[in-house]
């Protein structure tokens, strides 16, 4: 029975991947259409569109000066700095109204529901939470990434990230189904704790937010490149014209990464409490603990970089990218190849 359910779950996940692949194609077509549209004169644009690249740079500089004046020379994060560009307006300005993006979103929702069902089915098969080995971490981690992506849309229109994010999710699911599939096995005594539910779920949720922040920072870097070059970008990057300004992308990335950071802090503390009960010490520099710490410090640096003269913009974006790379390293490499107490990959 358990095996049958688990296999249904896997099959459902493969179907999910097909739907996501279709969504990915639709998101890519939308970007291509944006590229094409960017070549034509813009019809429905608001005032923001007319800002030239030079003006945008000036805006960014104003922001930096303000930061320097208000921030003083403190170590403690100072965030006293007016935001010159209105993010909501920027997003509204660049909203894509096309049919294709709606199809892409519909497919993503469909995929998400199948994905969620597959994950729940695995949990039912195992008679516990579906996050106790690499296969399950991958499944739950990606379902939360897509969930965060879809959930954020109710507050912010970030549909333009679809290709980036669904692409990432497809890649992770691909690796998982090739490398990580394991049958359901009972939990070892060390994992039999309600902290498994809390600690791992929050960590995975944090990963979802970091993933979206990472996608935004990546797009931000491309967009900055476009804004700084006076020439038009190559045709295939034409869609960059139709995306929000780099400053807006940076602000959005920051908002998501901050949520990720808070969740990550909680992960760290919950993990310590659990480690105290299970291993007799709250902190012992186990390899996974080391990497959790490294990730926390990188994102703390990222938050401080926002308030440090000369570190806003591309540099802080790179920090966010390094941070997410560390998250992926912690998940894909440390879990599987490093020796330590967190040896629960099930491989």
């Amino acid at each position: 029975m358990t095996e049958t359910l688990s296999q249904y779950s896997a099959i459902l996940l493969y179907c999910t991947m097909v739907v996501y692949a279709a969504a990915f194609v639709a998101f890519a077509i939308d970007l291509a259409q944006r590229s094409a549209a960017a070549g034509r004169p813009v019809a429905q644009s608001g005032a923001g569109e007319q800002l030239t690249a030079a003006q945008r740079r000036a805006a960014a500089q104003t922001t930096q000066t303000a930061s320097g004046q208000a921030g003083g020379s403190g170590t403690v994060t100072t965030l006293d700095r007016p935001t010159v560009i209105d993010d909501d307006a920027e997003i509204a300005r660049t909203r894509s109204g096309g049919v294709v993006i709606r199809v892409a979103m519909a497919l993503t929702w469909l995929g998400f529901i199948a994905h969620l069902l597959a994950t729940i089915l695995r949990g039912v098969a195992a008679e516990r939470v579906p996050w106790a080995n690499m296969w399950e971490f991958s499944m739950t981690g990606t379902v939360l990434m897509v969930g965060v992506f879809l959930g954020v849309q109710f507050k912010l229109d970030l549909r333009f990230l679809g290709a980036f994010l669904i692409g990432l999710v497809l890649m992770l699911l691909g690796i998982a189904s090739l490398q990580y599939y394991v049958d359901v096995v009972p939990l070892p005594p060390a994992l039999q704790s309600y902290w498994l539910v809390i600690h791992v779920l929050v960590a995975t949720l944090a990963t979802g937010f970091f993933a979206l922040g990472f996608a935004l920072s990546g797009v931000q870097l491309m967009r900055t490149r476009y804004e700084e070059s006076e020439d038009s970008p190559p045709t295939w990057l034409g869609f960059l014209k139709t995306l929000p300004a780099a400053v807006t992308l940076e602000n959005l990335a920051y908002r998501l990464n901050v949520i990720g950071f808070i969740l990550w802090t909680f992960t760290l503390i919950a993990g310590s409490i659990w480690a105290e009960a299970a291993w007799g010490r709250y902190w012992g520099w186990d390899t996974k603990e080391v990497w959790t710490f490294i990730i926390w410090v990188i994102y703390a640096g990222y938050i401080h970089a926002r308030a440090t003269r000369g570190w806003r913009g591309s540099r802080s974006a790179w920090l966010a990218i390094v941070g997410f790379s560390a998250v992926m390293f912690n998940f894909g490499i440390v879990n599987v190849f490093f020796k330590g107490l967190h040896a629960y990959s099930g491989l």
Partner: protein
Amino acid sequence: MPKPRTSDGITQPRLGPSGWLRWFWRQLTSMRTALLLLLLLAVAAVPGSLVPQRSSDPNGVTQYFRDNPDLAPILDNLQMFDVFTSAWFSAIYLLLFASLVGCVIPRTRHHLKALGQKPPKTPLRLNRMAGFIRKEHHGAETDARGAAGAAEQLLRKSGYRTVMFDEPATRGRPGAYSVSAERGYLRETGNLLFHIALLGVLVAVGVGGGFGFTGQRVVVEGQTMVNSLVSYDSFNPGRFFNDSSLKPFTLSVDTFDVTYQSDPNKGAYGQALDFDVKTTTRLPGEEPQSNRIKVNEPLSIGGTNVYLLGNGYAPTITVRDPSGRAVYREIIPFLPQDTNLTSTGIIKVPDGLADQLGMIGFFYPTPFELGTGALTSAYPDLKSPVLELRAYRGDLGINDGTPRSVYTLDTDGMTQIAGGKSGTDALRLGLGETVELPDGLGTISLDEVNRFASLDVHRDPAQGWVLLFAVLATAGMFAALLIPRRRVWVRATDGEGNTLQLEYAGLARGEDPQLAQAVADVARRHEAALDLEAPLDLEASPDFTSQRSTSSRTDVNSSP
């Protein structure tokens, strides 16, 4: 003496020792340095995960030395096996915390002052501020003063600190009333709390490590351990530890039950599902208490916690001389080598036989014969246990009092008499069996097999403080990252012909993505409070997003 000159001709002041110190302190407490130290800390932690650490994996370090005899001493000189207590790692975090202190002190002072102050004067040109809205109402029943008063009331109710200004008419400007309001002081409070709490965590971790201890002890079913220094197999005291913090309790392991996944048709056959140690503890002057220890459920006794960290088998072995007299009877914990608990142990019989006798034992709880004839264990529970022994006779090397590990046998001065190349098969014993030792030395019996629990006794007097500071830091972080600090202004001006002109604007003091919305919200609620309907919008177009873009463009153009 000429003043030092830089190449571009700028005269720089000469710095005395105190000047340099001040310069150094200013550099250290700058945001940029703090950021670099943070990133350096992240990088410095990486080797701690690549190279085994003495603190978390001492056996790994030994193995590393064996595998990389050339590289290991070099790494050891660089303190790579003790990264987190190394001089360089400590230097980074101590500098970081010094930098933090140097920043927190002036900011706390500044914040305390700000907490006692009223919001500053309303700026003259609100249209340069964020989220600016201007509206004009005809035939309003309120005058400017009343409108401003209502705004003040509304803002105060929403948690703003407010102050009202009567702005007399000047050249080119009619008289007006304005309200200057600020909220979100908790943001900076939280920010400071977060950083101070981090200091608290550091201090508490240090104190806990200094006064606490960890001790390991293997206890076989039926045995009792006493909480005193001599009874531990290994013991790591903190720097300021003294014996008096060892509460004199005893702990007996009554039974140790393990449940395994026993259905061979399902996955993970033989995986442990549950470890359950039943114990009896005694504190002086108190009744004995029965309790249990499980993997995620330590036992708390006398200010210390007792954890179950490992398990294995401890065979009871009796050796008799040819006359049948028992010369040796010990319960020997065998160290598990794999998940099916194939275990190894050492038996040393120094006296009573014709020669000293040493044996290397292999224990198979559920033996399975491989094609080669060698045994392995196929399941971790005791089904039909077998003990296999290689025996050596000669000199155990303990006569001169040299301390030897009970887990190793030095066979240099000995001759192998059973197993290996000795020409005699290794001795094999089932439970309750007795076999003859070679050379007519006597007999050996496997009387009994019990489980042992590997217990970790741990005391960290500051552990609760670490948690408290961590929770405080998190609370502070919530406030510092999520509560917006903002100023909002409302200005009311009486226009000609019974018109009332209202202006609203805000200023973000830190990350505040909702500012424009908040200002618009204040305007809406203010109008509702004043019972104003159908306002005549002057500058706020129905789609005020484009309006805000215009004002932001003004900002851009006016900045140098």
